[in-house]
C-alpha cells in the first residue's frame, strides 16, 4: 500500500513539475506577443489554444494510462482457463521472416492452439516454406492455406473461416510474438463483454535514427494512447501485428472488410459500435519490423493516415450519435482531431513561425513554442519508457522526435487528408523486409 502511495505521489510530482515548466514557458510566450500586430496576435491566440489542448491531452493520457497500469497490476497474472486459440498468419511474400515468425508461435507458452498460415498468392517461396514448416512441426499444429492474391483482409477472412478456435489471433506475417502473449491476452476474455484484446507492438530493428524514432513513437505515441483508452475498455485501433478476438465477434461483425487501407482500425470501430469492449494487454507483445528508409516510412504512414480517415468516414454517421455510447462518440471525434485538425495546426504553426521570425522579429517565440512541446514529449517519453520497462535512453530521441519526426509525420497526414478528401487514387505497396525478426 505504501509503495502504491509512493508511486502515485511520484507520478503526481513529476507531472506537476512538467506542467509547471510548461506553464512558465506558456506565460513567457504570451508576454512576448503584446507588442505585435493583429494578425500575429490572432494567430498566436489560435496556436496558444492549440498548445493548451496538446498540454491537456498529454496530461489526460498520462493520467488514465497510469490508472490503467494500477488496475492492470491488480489483475490475475495469467489466465486460469485455456480456450482453444487459432493464430492466423497472413503471408504475402514473407519468405524472409516467415520462419522466425512461425517459430515464435511454436514456442508459445499455451497448451491449446493451432497456427493457420494463409499464403495470399505469394510470388516468392512463402508457400513452400510454410508447407515445410507444417511438415517439421506437424499438420496438427500448423495448417497452410493458399489463395490467389486478394489482400490481407481476404487472407485473414479465409483464416477465420477455417479457424477451429474459440479465440482468434490475427497478426502480421512478419511479427514475432513473445511466449507469454497468448496467456496474457486470453485472461481478459473471462469477462463475457470483452470482444477483443489489443496487444502491444514494439519495434525490433532499432538500427538507425529513423527506426529508433519509430520505436519511441510506438511506445510514447501509440501505446500510451491505447493504454489510456483501455481504462475505458475502448481501444480504438487493434494493431495489425497482434489482435485477439472472439470468433463469435468476428462472425457477428462480418470479419475484415477490404474497402479501406486501415482494415484493422475499421474492424475495431465496428466491434466497438456493436457494443463489445476492447481491452489492451501490455504484456501481449508483438515485435515487428519498422521501415528503415524514409521512402518506405512515407508509404506506410501515408497508407495509415488515409486508411484511418477512410475508416472514420465510413462510420461518419456515428459522429452525430453521442448516445448511447458517449465514450465511443468522443473517442471517434478525437481520432478526427488527431488525423486532420492536429496535423493542419502543426503545418499552420510552422508557416506562422516563418512569418513571425522573418517579418515581425519575434524569434524567441519559436524557441518557447518548441521548448514547451519538447518538455511535454520528454515527460511523456520517460513516463512511458518506465511503465513499459523499456530502455530509458530512447528518451534522448525526444528532442529529434519533436524537431523533425513529428513535423514530417504531420505533413504526411496533411497531404494524406487532402488526397482523401479529393479522392486521389492510391495503391497498397509492399514494405520491404530485411528479416530482422
Amino acid at each position: 500500500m505504501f509503495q502504491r502511495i509512493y508511486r502515485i505521489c511520484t507520478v503526481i510530482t513529476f507531472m506537476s513539475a512538467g506542467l509547471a515548466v510548461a506553464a512558465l514557458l506558456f506565460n513567457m510566450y504570451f508576454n512576448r506577443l503584446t507588442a505585435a500586430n493583429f494578425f500575429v496576435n490572432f494567430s498566436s491566440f489560435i496556436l496558444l489554444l492549440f498548445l493548451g489542448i496538446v498540454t491537456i491531452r498529454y496530461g489526460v493520457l498520462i493520467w488514465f494510462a497510469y490508472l490503467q497500469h494500477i488496475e492492470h497490476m491488480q489483475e490475475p497474472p495469467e489466465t486460469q482457463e485455456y480456450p482453444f486459440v487459432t493464430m492466423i498468419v497472413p503471408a504475402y511474400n514473407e519468405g524472409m521472416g516467415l520462419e522466425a515468425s512461425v517459430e515464435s508461435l511454436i514456442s508459445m507458452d499455451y497448451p491449446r492452439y493451432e497456427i493457420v498460415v494463409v499464403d495470399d498468392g505469394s510470388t516468392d517461396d512463402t508457400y513452400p516454406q510454410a508447407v515445410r514448416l507444417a511438415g517439421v512441426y506437424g499438420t496438427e499444429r500448423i495448417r497452410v492455406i493458399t489463395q490467389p492474391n486478394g489482400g490481407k483482409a481476404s487472407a485473414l477472412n479465409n483464416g477465420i473461416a477455417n479457424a477451429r478456435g474459440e479465440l482468434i489471433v490475427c497478426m502480421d506475417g512478419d511479427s514475432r510474438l513473445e511466449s507469454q502473449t497468448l496467456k496474457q491476452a486470453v485472461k481478459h476474455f473471462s469477462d463475457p463483454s470483452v470482444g477483443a484484446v489489443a496487444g502491444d507492438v514494439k519495434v525490433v530493428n532499432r538500427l538507425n535514427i529513423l527506426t529508433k524514432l519509430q520505436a519511441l513513437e510506438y511506445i510514447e505515441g501509440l501505446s500510451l494512447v491505447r493504454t489510456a483508452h483501455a481504462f475505458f475498455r475502448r481501444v480504438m485501433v487493434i494493431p495489425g501485428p497482434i489482435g485477439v478476438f472472439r470468433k463469435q465477434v468476428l462472425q457477428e461483425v462480418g470479419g475484415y472488410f477490404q474497402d479501406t487501407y486501415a482494415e484493422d482500425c475499421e474492424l475495431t470501430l465496428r466491434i466497438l459500435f456493436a457494443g463489445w469492449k476492447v481491452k489492451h494487454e501490455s504484456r501481449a507483445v508483438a515485435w515487428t519490423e519498422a521501415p528503415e528508409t524514409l521512402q518506405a516510412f512515407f508509404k506506410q504512414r501515408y497508407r495509415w493516415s488515409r486508411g484511418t480517415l477512410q475508416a472514420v468516414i465510413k462510420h461518419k454517421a456515428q459522429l452525430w450519435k453521442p448516445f448511447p455510447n458517449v465514450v465511443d462518440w468522443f473517442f471517434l471525434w478525437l481520432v478526427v482531431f488527431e488525423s486532420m485538425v492536429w496535423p493542419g495546426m502543426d503545418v499552420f504553426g510552422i508557416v506562422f513561425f516563418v512569418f513571425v521570425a522573418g517579418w515581425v522579429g519575434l524569434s524567441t517565440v519559436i524557441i518557447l513554442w518548441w521548448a514547451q512541446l519538447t518538455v511535454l514529449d520528454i515527460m511523456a517519453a520517460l513516463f512511458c519508457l518506465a511503465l513499459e520497462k523499456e530502455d530509458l535512453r530512447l528518451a534522448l530521441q525526444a528532442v529529434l522526435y519533436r524537431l523533425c519526426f513529428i513535423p514530417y509525420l504531420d505533413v504526411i497526414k496533411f497531404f494524406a487528408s487532402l488526397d482523401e478528401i479529393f479522392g486521389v487514387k492510391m495503391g497498397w505497396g509492399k514494405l520491404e523486409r530485411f528479416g530482422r525478426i
Partner: protein
Amino acid sequence: MELIPLLSTVILVATIVTLLFAAFSYFAYRAREKKVPRVTTSLMDKQQILLEPQFFKRYHSPE
C-alpha cells in the same frame, strides 16, 4: 551571438528543412505512383476469382 536567437534559428531552419523535405517526399511519392503500372481489379472480379476452384501446388522437397 546570444544563445536564444541562435537556438531559435537552428529550430527554425531544422523545421523548415523538414517541412520542405516532407513536401518533396510527397511529390516524389505521387510521381512514383503514377509510373507504377496498376492492374485494376474490380470488386466483382475479385469475388469471381475467389469463387473459382483452387488447386494447390504440390511442393516437392529439394531431395
